[in-house]
């Protein structure tokens, strides 16, 4: 095993780039795949991605930092994305967010003792059944505390 293979995410980064023919225009897809496999985009993987795709490190880093989806630190085991946009606000999204945060004892983007984090999101396309939230991939309409708890419990299984 070469030294570079011990770098977090290195093997995965190379393999994913290869499945995308090392095509630099596929960078977003590659980052999505890497984040699914590794859980985040390790800073150490940036030079490797740059090397595979024939881009500069600054270009890769610029993309990682531009998009809300990509994180450079490990995330929580369970992520609750809670909609803060207008339609959900009209149905009490702010109050719901506050109640959830205080019950789980965290602020936005912090990880709770139970491994749950709440992230703001602007619209989940469920605006007729507001407020909306998404627990990992599962969308919740007419969200209330009980529905979010149930989805968290389901995701934790």
């Amino acid at each position, binding site marked *: 095993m070469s030294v570079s293979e011990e770098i977090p995410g290195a093997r995965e980064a190379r393999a994913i780039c290869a499945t995308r023919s090392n095509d630099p*225009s596929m*960078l*977003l897809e590659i980052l999505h795949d890497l984040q699914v496999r590794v859980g985040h985009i390790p800073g150490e993987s940036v030079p490797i991605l740059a090397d595979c795709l024939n881009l500069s490190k600054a270009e890769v880093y610029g993309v990682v930092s531009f*998009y809300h989806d990509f994180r450079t630190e490990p995330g929580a085991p369970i992520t609750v994305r809670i909609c803060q946009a*207008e339609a959900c606000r*009209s*149905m009490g999204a702010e109050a719901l967010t506050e109640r959830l945060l205080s019950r789980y004892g965290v602020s936005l983007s912090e990880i709770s003792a139970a491994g749950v984090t709440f992230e703001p999101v602007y619209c989940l*396309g469920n605006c*007729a059944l*507001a407020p909306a939230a998404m627990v990992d991939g599962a969308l919740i309409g007419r969200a209330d505390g009980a529905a979010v708890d149930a989805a968290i419990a389901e995701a934790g299984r």
Partner: protein
Amino acid sequence: MSLVLFVPDDAAAVSVGADRVAAALAVAAEERGLDLRLVRNGSRGMLWLEPLVEWDGPDGRMAFGPVAPDEAGSLLDAISSGTGHPRALGPTEEIDYLKNQERLTFARVGVIDPLSVRDFEAHGGLEGLKTALTMTEEAICEAVLQSGLRGRGGAGFPAGIKWHTVREQAQAEKYICCNADEGDSGTFADRMLMEGDPFTLLEGMVIAGFATGARQGIVYIRSEYPHAISKMTRAIEALEEAGWLGGNIRGSGKDFRVSIRRGAGAYICGEESSMLNSIEGRRGTVRSKPPIPAIHGLFGKPTVVNNVLTLATVPVVLAKGAEFYKDFGMGRSRGTQAFQLAGNIRRGGLVEKAFGVTIRELIETFGGGTATGRPFRTAQLGGPLGAYVSEEMLDLPMDYEALAEHKAMLGHGGITVFDETVDMAEMARFAFEFCEEESCGKCTPCRIGAVRGRETVEKILRGENVARNIALIEDLCELMTDGSLCAMGGLTPMPVLSAILLFPEDFDRASALAAE
């Protein structure tokens, strides 16, 4: 004979339990020894009735909703024995909400199995494409132009003009890029179309390819839409297998391939040039115009950028003719629009109607007023960059020009309703916060203006120098409107100024404090 039931797998339906209902129905059928065929359709768009179960019986489709998982057994019993059920709504298409619509783009959504090419064809799918195969490139572009179809993504630019421009470019390589970023709050029609009738979008893209000489299409779908991404992925495979997508389409000698790209949580990537950068794997910053994408677009090649609904409407235009389509609507707004009733509304969902329907008809007749039952206060039209309207404006028709005359915007057709508890100064603060959060950072009026705007509204919220700070915001809005490179910074003043103009009492914080 098997019992046929439809249970949507549309993300909104699933968000209130459609998967659990489908599973419960399967178990209950097994227990009763019934031969159940369960079709996972798109949603009919009556979202307050989801999960809406339909039975395909001798008298056509019968609706039941909203159905809870523990009602699965009683529902099957009622159907088998021909007795009533508390959730029964009668024939689906006789429900006023649906009956009073004019569904052209959404004609098949909720009706068919979204992934069955045979179902699609049996309900009029592929007719537009078959017609296009008999036409010249120029004739297709001309039909789209004559239909009066304007871009449904917000700006309302005539689709036919854009297509003609791309067609006239000499380059061999061209692209069709479908904008499925749908980031506006209060909108979900693109998502519903992709989940409920994905072949129609693909058919529209193939036609766009034939009309312009492009052989490659890309659908850019926001990552917040995992259900739509998966549905579109499977739809592409199914249509390729059927020979209507890919190489040498149905022996025509023409190729058209479609691939999907995921967004990554950036609202600005809905702006077309930012989307093109994102598809190229770059930061989603806005490009200066000119050059326009039709001449210098994806990878520098001529590119059609159209919204999901623009492309998905093209098949019906070609199948039924430009004249047929043009007969709907008013003024320069031709055809139908998929209006989306969202927020604090009793009957939220999708209403496809000819342009010209009033805001009041949509909110009151279709929507049934607020969900909370409290008095209506305002509605925001056209997403986060659209204006708020007051009660007095509700009789305005939904028409691009009529709304623009009143400093409002139709946008992507979303209507977000608020009851009397809304604090409009807080909504103005939020408009700036959203712009601050989602600005691409390329130009100063937007990048700095949003931050200054939010800070200034916060001062007003605290009752500090209210009159002076309102004047400051008005100046700032003028600067953002005139000096921003794109509509993100350019239109953020819309919600802010409409809130100040129509609801000045909400900004009068000092006196509110004094009155306590």
